[in-house]
């Protein structure tokens, strides 16, 4: 993933002015910094959810800043597993259906969907909650389901925005174990924003944003 001369502003508020950044395949990089310093903005730009005001973002060799919204959505479904800071599970759907959704949009057939969903839920330990409505889950449980959903399509890139923030110590350990295993055994590229020292200690490199956006 490469950012070239990226500028991002919200009105008069400049978040990034001329950002250059390269994340090599298979690396695990953490981004630390105070609340409001633009960490989530960077994750969202990598995921193509937010567009830079200026500059280019290349992900897996493709210029995502040149893609239209639908092409970006399709690219995201195939390439990126995202665990956002703000919960994006659909409360009306069950845990199983929430985890299944990315595969549904990729038109994966029903049998293959079931195998992948079962595997992803088992991996993060939420299989027992499969039939529960996502709206009835605790904050920590929702985060774990988001994790299962991010992994269900086995994406080459995983973007995590404060993944352990809402978790109790036990659940945090599960996430840390997953991150350790993912990066070491599957060669996945991981970019994570965090305040959690345990998470940044796992990363090969930790970047720090020091300035809060005015």
């Amino acid at each position, binding site marked *: 993933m490469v950012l070239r001369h990226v500028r991002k502003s919200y009105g008069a508020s400049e978040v990034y002015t001329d950002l250059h950044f390269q994340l090599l395949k298979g690396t695990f990089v953490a981004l630390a910094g105070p609340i409001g310093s633009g960490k989530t903005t960077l994750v969202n730009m990598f995921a193509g959810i937010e567009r830079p005001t200026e500059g280019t973002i290349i992900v897996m060799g493709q210029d995502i800043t040149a893609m239209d*919204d*639908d092409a970006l959505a*399709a690219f*995201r479904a195939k390439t990126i597993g995202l665990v956002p800071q703000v919960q994006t599970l659909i409360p009306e*759907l069950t845990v199983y*259906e929430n985890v*299944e959704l990315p595969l549904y949009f990729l038109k994966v057939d029903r049998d293959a969907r079931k195998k992948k969903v079962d595997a992803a839920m088992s991996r993060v330990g939420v299989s027992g909650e499969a039939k529960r409505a996502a709206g009835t889950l605790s904050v920590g449980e929702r985060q774990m389901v988001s994790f299962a959903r991010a992994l269900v399509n086995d994406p080459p890139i995983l973007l995590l925005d404060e993944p352990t923030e809402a978790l109790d110590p036990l659940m945090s350990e599960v996430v840390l174990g997953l991150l350790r295993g993912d990066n070491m055994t599957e060669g996945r590229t991981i970019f994570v924003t965090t305040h959690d020292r345990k998470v940044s200690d796992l990363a090969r490199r930790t970047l720090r944003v020091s300035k809060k956006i005015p």
Partner: protein
Amino acid sequence: MKAGALLERGGPVARSLRISGSTHVMAAAISAAVSLNGTIALQTLGVLGQAAVVAVVFLSVAACTAAISVDILGRSTKAVSDLRSIGASRWSISSALFGSMLVYGAAGSFLGGVVGATAGSALFGGALGAQTLAEVLAVLAASVGAVAAGAYAGGRITWRS
């Protein structure tokens, strides 16, 4: 998107958008009422009047369906944004709405057309023949076409905004 998914009324996308039984009833009831009145009117009018009625049927149903579509997508902005963040295309979201509107709108139109033809025949004393069948089909085509056009237009309006 496969036809099965298009008609998957209780599918995950439709439920994410909170397309409920009430939405289905509204789409069916509007199409049924307009088709019923349209079919009765056709039996009393000449060719020009009939053309005007078919146009009114089309415009009324299309406007109502577009309004329902805009309302559903407008109320579900968070769900739409959440679905987009995990790879949903505009079409995969719109088609869930489009499928629901089309299935229930067509059912309502059919019911309204049949009841309208029967009621018109009873009111005006005409026989239920080929002429009536043609009138029902004209109203049905206008109504179903209007549901499709309205749902599509509603989606376009929402995505543009």
